[in-house]
């Protein structure tokens, strides 16, 4: 029998509906640290199901398509005439989204890798687009906090943001999110809504931090990381949306000491521009505008990350507490 779980993300109600299945279970596990919504109405609904033929289950929208995202093994397309998305990972995990209507359908085969892709990439990209239509704009960034002030650790996959965030958490800062935040424009600037997703721990991070030693083995899937619930790593409270006080762009180096170099607002916005998926024009312009406000109101630094993991939390705390 179909059931619906509702989650509160950035003040919006996000429903995950469908028959009980390994895909529902995996999504529920992924979202276990996200606050639940007890209401009955949803802003965005994900209808998820297991099927032997995901491509047949979800029809292709009409009209021309353009690619919006690159990821090995899949095609991720946007249809401008109808503002729809069709995401297809090798035919084993497929998603169709109408972001403005808040309607997303995900279908996957019972294979473990299909379920992992369906519960991650196929969920995240449509969620990002649905929230974008509703004034919440994604930034690929971890978030840590000290004394009610928040630092964003920004960068694409592999930049070292998760590792730096976990090192900061180990050093006494609050870990608010591992990979994504959503920014929302307010009268005086922007606020940050951390996305309380599970944390992805790669082998290198597990080797670096002794308390993560149990994650040094191979991760279960090709996505390359072990998944840890956020609640296991932090006591930070859900529902807190602070203004950002600093943005860091880490770059892992072989040096012994970490160093900070200030960035201009232009450099910051240029570094953040990759967060705008090139889909619907007005929403994408609004996303770029929000990033522009973030870049001009929040000091930013390149951080050459050295081997001094015991000193890195102090470096970040000092920026937040001055």
């Amino acid at each position, binding site marked *: 029998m179909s059931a619906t779980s509702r989650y509160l993300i950035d003040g919006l109600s996000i429903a995950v509906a469908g028959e009980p299945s390994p895909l529902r279970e995996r999504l529920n596990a992924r979202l276990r640290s996200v606050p639940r919504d007890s209401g009955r109405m949803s802003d965005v609904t994900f209808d998820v199901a297991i099927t032997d033929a995901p491509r047949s289950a979800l029809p292709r929208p009409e009209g021309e398509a353009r690619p919006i995202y690159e990821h090995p093994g899949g095609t991720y397309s946007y249809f401008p005439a109808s503002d729809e998305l069709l995401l297809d990972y090798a035919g084993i995990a497929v998603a169709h989204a109408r972001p403005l209507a808040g309607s997303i359908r995900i279908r996957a085969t019972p294979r473990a890798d299909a379920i992992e892709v369906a519960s991650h990439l196929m969920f995240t990209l449509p969620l990002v687009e649905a929230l974008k239509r509703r004034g919440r704009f994604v930034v690929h960034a971890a978030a840590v906090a000290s004394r009610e002030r928040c630092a964003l650790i920004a960068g694409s996959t592999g930049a070292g943001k998760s590792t730096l965030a976990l090192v900061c958490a180990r050093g006494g800062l609050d870990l608010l999110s591992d990979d994504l935040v959503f920014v929302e424009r307010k009268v005086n600037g922007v606020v940050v809504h951390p996305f309380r997703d599970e944390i992805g721990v790669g082998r290198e991070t597990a080797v670096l931090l002794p308390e993560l030693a149990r994650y040094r083995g191979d991760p279960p899937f090709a996505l390359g990381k072990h998944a840890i619930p956020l609640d296991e790593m932090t006591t930070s409270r859900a529902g807190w949306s602070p203004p950002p006080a600093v943005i860091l762009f880490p770059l892992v180096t072989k040096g012994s000491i970490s160093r900070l170099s200030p960035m201009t607002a*232009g*450099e910051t*916005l240029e570094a953040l521009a990759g967060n705008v998926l090139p*889909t619907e*024009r007005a929403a994408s312009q609004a996303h*770029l505008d929000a990033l522009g406000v973030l870049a001009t109101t929040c000091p930013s630094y390149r951080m050459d990350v050295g081997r001094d993991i015991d000193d890195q939390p102090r470096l970040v705390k000092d920026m937040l507490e001055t």
Partner: protein
Amino acid sequence: MDPFRPLPTPGVLSRRALASIVLIEIESGRSYALDGAGALMWELCDGSRTSEEIARVVASEYRADMRVVNADLDELLGRLREEGLIRAA
């Protein structure tokens, strides 16, 4: 023949961040950054000005030699056209 009055193509998003402007071309997803005089030149490409008029404004703002500004502007407009970021009004 009407002089060329440059104008952004419809698929270009732009945002100023203090002295810089970042552009995103929505069909390709490519992003670009323009600083200082280049950012001003972009903002003046609104379809109402010829390149000569744009150069005059920039030269006045930066107290620069018109020949240098014209050369820089020609190069910039050439690149923006190649990338599909501007068209004639």
